[in-house]
């Protein structure tokens, strides 16, 4: 997973299939990067996510908790239709800002 920082904004590009098999690794990477850069906004970019199940919801909840501790927020962007359906079913808009630019 690649990431970049602009000011206090940390962007992490998620990739591939996010399921239970990979969730721990993805959570750990996000946690490490947040701890390293202490951002105000953590952007999770879903452009290259090819599949996501409810494990991805737990990933977003975890990122939200870490950012909440830092008085920061989570922004989700470029979410393809399949991951969006899962995130939306869980009401993810309640804990993260959502920027959708990928057409449904």
């Amino acid at each position, binding site marked *: 997973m690649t990431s970049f920082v602009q000011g206090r904004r940390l962007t992490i590009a998620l990739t591939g*299939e996010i*399921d*239970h*098999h990979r*969730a*721990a690794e993805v*959570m750990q990477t996000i946690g490490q990067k947040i701890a390293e850069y202490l951002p105000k906004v953590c952007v999770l970019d879903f452009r290259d996510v090819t*599949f996501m*199940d*409810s*494990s991805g*919801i*737990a990933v977003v*909840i*975890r990122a939200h908790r870490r950012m909440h501790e830092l008085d920061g927020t989570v922004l989700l962007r470029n979410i393809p*239709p*399949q991951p969006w*359906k*899962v995130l939306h*079913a*869980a009401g993810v808009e309640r804990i993260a800002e959502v920027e959708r630019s990928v057409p449904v």
Partner: protein
Amino acid sequence: MKKTENYMLLEIPSRSANESFSRSAVAAFAARLDPTMEELGDIKTAVSEAVTNCIVHAYPNEIGVIQIKCKILSGNVLDISIKDHGCGIEDLSKAMRPLYTTGSDERSGMGFTIMESFMTSLKVTSKVGKGTTVHMKRKIVDRGEKR
């Protein structure tokens, strides 16, 4: 009773690396129903949730067997049953409640809710000490109806 037009049986050990394989195998089996990307995504998601439940909850401390049975029924219906011989679920209605989980904070508690909302029907039977079967159906909209 609907006629079975095709079927497949798949048996896998409850290793998390098999989550991806099992949902892809079911998607490949369903392909002849000519599903849309959305229908395929829904099916893969539901299968992934059910198989993950077997791995995380049915066999928490061991590698057990997961049996996946898929049928294509007349009327463009995909019928999937996912069975384990694991620990079983004590309180089904509690387990199926949104956000309820006995798993670690790597789990969201949304598995059954997603299976229920992404599939046409969902039936779960479970016996403590014997195992759990998740039975799901999904009607695939006929190509003629889609266009």
